[in-house]
């Protein structure tokens, strides 16, 4: 079992705490005058996203979390699992709804996603910051309404609904910010 000593602590390091994988966000060296030294770290629980503060005595060691980020191609959803493939080895990995979470509404087949694996199983799935998706349904646009003015809902090929300008029509390809769920622009084909 791999472990890390406090002097190896740095942000981004993945460690196990109370049986959950955590990522170090911040590490502060604390040493009172003639006394013992400590590491005070802020860690993010990779399962819940919660950030907590922990303090370790210098020299203490902590179990390493077998966590790695890999780029995988999204294949399909079978109703329960989302299936991904390693484009190099063709190895397939299935992620459940907990791991995919809100990201599911941006997942388009063939898209390359960043999947965080813990002990080989998907912990979370990230799509690129900007995704390109086509409009499957939206009310007809009004002529003359161009850059400014109101917005209307549009349903995208992944099932997600976003607010778009009135001039957008069905079948158009849009660029969406997956972090905020906001429309960015049309994509010229």
């Amino acid at each position, binding site marked *: 079992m791999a472990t890390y000593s406090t*002097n190896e602590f740095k942000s981004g390091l993945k460690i196990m705490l109370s049986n959950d994988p955590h990522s170090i966000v911040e590490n*502060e*060296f*604390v*040493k*009172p*005058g*003639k*006394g*013992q*030294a*400590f590491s*005070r770290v802020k860690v993010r629980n990779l399962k819940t996203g919660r950030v*907590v*503060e*922990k*303090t*370790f*005595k*210098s020299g*203490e060691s902590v179990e390493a979390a077998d966590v790695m980020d890999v780029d995988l191609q999204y294949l399909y959803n079978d109703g329960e699992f989302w299936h991904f493939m390693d484009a190099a080895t063709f190895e397939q990995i299935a992620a459940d709804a907990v791991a995919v979470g809100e990201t599911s509404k941006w997942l388009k087949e063939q898209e390359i996603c960043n999947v965080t694996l813990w002990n080989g199983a998907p912990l979370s799935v990230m799509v690129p910051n900007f995704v390109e998706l086509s409009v499957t349904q939206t009310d007809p646009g009004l002529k003359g309404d161009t850059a400014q003015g109101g917005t209307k809902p549009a349903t995208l090929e992944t099932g997600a609904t976003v607010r778009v300008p009135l001039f957008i029509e069905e079948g158009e390809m849009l660029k969406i910010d997956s972090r905020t769920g906001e429309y960015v622009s049309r994509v010229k084909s």
Partner: protein
Amino acid sequence: MLTQIRAFFAQRQVLEVETPILSNAAGSDPHIECLQTALADGRRCYLNSSPEFAMKRLLAADVGDIYQVSRVFRQGEQGRYHNPEFTLLEWYRLDFDHFALMDEVEALLQQLLPEFPPALKLSYQQAFERFLNLNPLTAAVAELHQVIEGLPVSAPHFPEDESRDSLLDWLMSQGVAPCFPLDRPTFIYHYPASQASLARLSIDDPSIAERFECYWGELELANGFHELLDAAEQQARFEAELQQRQVQGLAQPPLDYNLIAALQAGMPACAGVALGLDRLLMVLSGAEHIRDVLAFSIERA
């Protein structure tokens, strides 16, 4: 800053000295690890973590009042307030006790920093009583654990048999020091005898040591002693520290027998203090990180 420091000591007729950075011996403090290097013949040398031992040998040679601005090195100390290589201003005054030296530290700070109100001066016990409502000398260990749990900061795992000093250190730095005023220095004096380090114990009350620290806000700037002169006592403390190091599985550095010999030959009564100049620059400039006051911090050195 250095010009002002040199003028301050010149006016008080304190002699500037230089002592070696490389030493054949190292400190035995279990909480300070010295950096090592080797000479061409394979002889191991230590980079000093403080010029204290060498300066005391000069004192024993009757050189009189002395000061030094020196680079010192400590393994593994790197963070917001730490760089493995840093600068200490260390000075010794004959026939001063710790109170006289505290006054001199305050006078120097008044010269180097913008004007501030008179320093807050509290004994270790008073500080704990004022800010944590706890008597650090008599409180039961269970009570210390309890107070630690009540603090707003996350504590490391302290087992039941954690040493009393280790718990007190944590309380001092995480519970007491954060309450110090931000607009002036705070001096804490009369540490428990178990934290005497190189200070003499009080003749009136041997449970306390004549040691002081100077803080600015919660940042420690200086550590001073009414110096221990007793060679046998000093050797016993070093050996106790070595034993503690052994228990903790730490290296056993060679003790500085030159210092013991100097104490045996007789060192004049004096008080001495070491002040971190990088941290003082942080106070002066309002810097948030020590690297902001260094030309090149260790990441870029």
